[in-house]
């Protein structure tokens, strides 16, 4: 029974793989073909952000936080990946309306294609991140390999959020503005540039509802402190990612045949 399901999935993946690759190529070209420094800018932008934040916030928070640059960068790394992939993914379904209203293709492929782009971006910045860690005198341990876990979950979480957002965007086009306001507010409650130690315990627990904070904290724990979080922490991260992904998959399944009336 399970073997059949796996075979079914494998068939599906094989069938769609070619289309997926072509969509990724197309989106890649669409994004970078008219810019001169294109890809380079995707890396330069977050670095500039990091520099400014480091200069400004060190005065307020940096003196108490060890490895503040890494601390900041961990936050920005995760947050920017989330913010960028969800914003880009949100419009992916609507912008491919010309295709899916005429040809029967799995609609989630458009989102996957956008997410593939964002993931590549993220991995590039991740490399830069590790370089910065070196300069910040962070000790590299085998535990860094565990970072695969939050990264995979982050991919799932971003795809899930993207599925939900892109579905809502079809029906309500001002979702884009709501989301950009939401992500802006999220930057302030994700403890990107401050520590939560100064808050009372009750407030600290509230931070754990924020999935982005969870992923950021995981990175910081492994990279800066060299500690592996508890099992319950891992499970919480997993639960939140799976929850959002399931919601997104559900929405795509439910509204699959309704989308075309709204584009």
């Amino acid at each position, binding site marked *: 029974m399970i073997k059949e399901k796996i075979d079914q999935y494998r068939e599906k993946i094989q069938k769609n793989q*070619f289309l997926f690759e*072509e969509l990724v190529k197309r989106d890649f*070209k669409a994004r970078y073909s008219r810019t001169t420094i294109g890809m380079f800018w995707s890396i330069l932008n977050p670095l500039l952000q990091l520099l400014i934040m480091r200069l400004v916030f060190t005065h307020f928070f940096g003196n108490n936080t060890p490895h503040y640059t890494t601390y900041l960068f961990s936050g920005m790394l995760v947050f920017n990946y989330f913010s960028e992939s969800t914003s880009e993914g949100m419009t992916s379904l609507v912008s491919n309306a010309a*295709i899916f209203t*005429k*040809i029967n293709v799995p609609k989630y492929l458009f989102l996957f294609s956008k997410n593939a782009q964002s993931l590549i971006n993220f991995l590039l910045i991740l490399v830069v991140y590790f370089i910065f860690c070196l300069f910040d005198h962070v000790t590299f341990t085998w535990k860094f390999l565990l970072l695969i876990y939050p990264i995979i979950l982050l991919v799932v979480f971003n795809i899930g959020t993207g599925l939900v957002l892109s579905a809502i965007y079809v029906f*309500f086009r*001002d979702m884009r503005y*709501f989301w950009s306001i939401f992500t802006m507010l999220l930057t302030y409650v994700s403890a990107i540039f401050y520590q939560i130690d100064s808050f009372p315990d009750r407030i600290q627990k509230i931070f754990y509802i924020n999935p982005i904070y969870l992923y950021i904290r995981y990175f910081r724990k492994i990279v800066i402190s060299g500690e592996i979080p508890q099992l319950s922490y891992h499970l919480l991260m997993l639960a939140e990612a799976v929850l959002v992904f399931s919601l997104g998959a559900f929405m795509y399944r439910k509204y699959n045949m309704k989308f075309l*009336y709204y584009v």
Partner: protein
Amino acid sequence: MSVLEAHNVSIRYLKGNFQNIGLKDYIMRKITGTYHVESFWADRDINFALEKGDMLGIIGTNGAGKSTLLKAVSGVMEPSIGYISHTGTISSLLELGGGFDDNLTIRENTFLRGALLGYTRQFLTEKYDEIIAENFRIICSASFPQG
């Protein structure tokens, strides 16, 4: 079973002022009562069965429901009543210009189109020259980036 069968297919189509609006507009329209969704039957009780090698021509006036029926056959829409069953794969040739991108070269566009229609990469690499040769005139009349 025949290659393609339609059983008592009836398809509802929706029209109204619900497209391209935001949440704000939706709420406003609901409150003021100006939000309307019209649904009508685009196709009613369609039945046919095609065997291998058959060709079926569907003729009708504007708005008769031809495209809607074809969309249901290809899976873009689903029948509100009845069902359509088929063996094998279905390729749609609805509106050939759709999906062409100015950013991409001819080769990339061809491959993307082929992928959308369900062909494999291997098939397209093998048949690429043939495809280009057959459509040479059309390609020359358009302008694409070099490649």
